[in-house]
């Protein structure tokens, strides 16, 4: 990614104490990658008075305390950060962790497996193989800290369900587009449920309820139900740390 692609940010006020940052570009993939890179850099150089940021697919909402800073200052900081060329490699000041997540893929734990296979013109076994051979990168933490990942290698993007499921159990591994996500708590979803991991993804009794963050790498390993039960899987922890 070049400085030029990065430099052109749009900053729009949103209410009395937030701005929406977008990176205008004709190519959707560049818009999406550039905003992730921008977010990392902005957080690494967070200006005073900025309370939090909220990642969208192609945008970043920057919330600030209007009594400690002002719209103009935040906008100025956004433009300054955006003008610096992004460095290569992972986001600054952070180690990339790797996770190996055992998953039971079968008709009961993965009720959408058959329909996904049909949609892609594959057999269910080939879908499981494709998921197992994909290397996922966590793009962001979605609702309730769910790890949202990119990197599913399938012939074409997977559609969402026309009618969302209303109550998906925790640990469900779900796909849509070329993304995967793990459901941390019971709840509704429009994603396609293809399997289930015995691990606890989010544990609210821990000071830090998750062990992963954006940029971390995830691989799914197919296991049988018996193997899953024998794992005595608890809170999901990384298998290795790579710089």
């Amino acid at each position, binding site marked *: 990614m070049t400085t030029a692609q990065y430099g052109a940010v749009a900053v*729009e*006020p*949103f*209410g*009395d*104490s*937030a701005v*929406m940052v977008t990176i205008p570009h004709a190519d959707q993939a560049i818009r999406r990658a550039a905003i992730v890179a921008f*977010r990392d850099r902005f*957080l690494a150089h967070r200006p005073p008075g900025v*309370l*939090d*940021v*909220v*990642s*969208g*697919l*192609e*945008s*970043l*909402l920057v*919330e600030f*305390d*209007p*009594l*400690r800073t002002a*719209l103009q200052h935040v906008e100025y900081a956004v433009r300054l950060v955006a003008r610096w060329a992004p460095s290569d490699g992972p986001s600054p000041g952070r180690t990339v962790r790797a996770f190996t997540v055992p998953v039971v893929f079968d008709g009961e734990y993965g009720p959408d497996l058959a329909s996904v296979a049909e949609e892609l013109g594959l057999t269910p076994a080939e879908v499981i193989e494709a998921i197992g051979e994909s290397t996922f990168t966590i793009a*962001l*933490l*979605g*609702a*309730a*800290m*769910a790890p949202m990942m990119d990197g599913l290698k399938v012939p074409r993007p997977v559609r969402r369900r026309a009618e969302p499921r209303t109550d998906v159990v925790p640990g469900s591994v779900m796909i849509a587009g070329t993304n995967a996500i793990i459901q*941390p*708590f019971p*709840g509704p979803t429009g994603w396609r449920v293809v399997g289930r991991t015995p691990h606890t993804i*989010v544990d*609210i009794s821990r000071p830090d*309820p*998750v062990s992963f*963050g954006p940029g971390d790498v995830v691989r799914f390993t197919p296991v049988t139900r018996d193997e899953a039960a024998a794992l005595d899987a608890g809170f999901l922890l990384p298998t290795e740390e790579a710089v």
Partner: protein
Amino acid sequence: MTTVGLDITSSGWVTTFQDLGRRDTERRGVPTGGAADQHSASVANLLVGNPREATLIESLGGELALVPGAPVLLAVTGAPAQVTVGGAPADSWSPLVVPAGQEIRVRGDMDRGTRTYLAVNGTLTARTLLGSAAPDARMGFGQVIARGERLLVETEFRGFGRRLFEPQLFRLPVPVPRFDHGPWVVDVVASHGIHTIAGIRQLIEDSTYVVTPRSNHVGLRLDGPVLHPDDDTEIVSHGVPVGALQIPHADELIVLGRYRSLTAGYPIVGVTSRAALPLLGQAGPGRELRFRWIDRETSLRRFARREAEVRALGHAAAEAFGALGFGAPLSRINCEAILI
């Protein structure tokens, strides 16, 4: 410092631990959450000498009642409420002493506002999630307080040796909001989406909207006239400020609350002024709302004025309690604005 038990003798409809919400967790998928009416929650804490972000009790509907095992200093704020201590009427929006073994009862007037707040001098023992006691139902963090429970508060308060019927202990400059009977006027700053729907600005300004029972912490759903964009421009999933006015495909208006998540597909025509957010946190089913467009400068001026009042109360309370010799929590008063 002593630990005092608070026996919950009535818990109303929904009573929870609460505070001003999580900080810096939105980018990890956890909304700030926290007291729907941040002003009332802040003031309740300041009235008892606590930092404004201290854990307190939020109650929605019905009657909250508790009996302390030792004298406690507490304050009730929020919606207009009938407050009694040992059966005798007491004031809300004021520090109150509840003697050991006496019951304080709080019954909010649901026609005037939905939530009451009860703060107790000291530190309430409560579980936290990501640094906050605020509930997050989505993550299974309910924080519900039930009848029969005993809460624990660590406090330096030992009583003043006064009787209940003596005149008010303190005269503090308390910024008490108005909870009018008629429609509430909510200030809104226009946002980008307003340009995608011709005539929406005028329509919203001229109409009255009614809060429906399908409302919750995620958003208030309002009955009233709306218009939709002519074209189907795709709006991809993005973050939204608390108080955003969203127009879904159905004919309703949604004002997003402190537990909102990303939104997609629907235009956002404006965002509620910070100074008006506490009022929205008190709006319950049946409440009529009117929206008034204001510019960003006016919005921030109002917020700054409101914040100055709260700070003035904080300083006055710190002086009053300091003069009485109990000051520990006060030294931690945090003057940063943490209303989101």
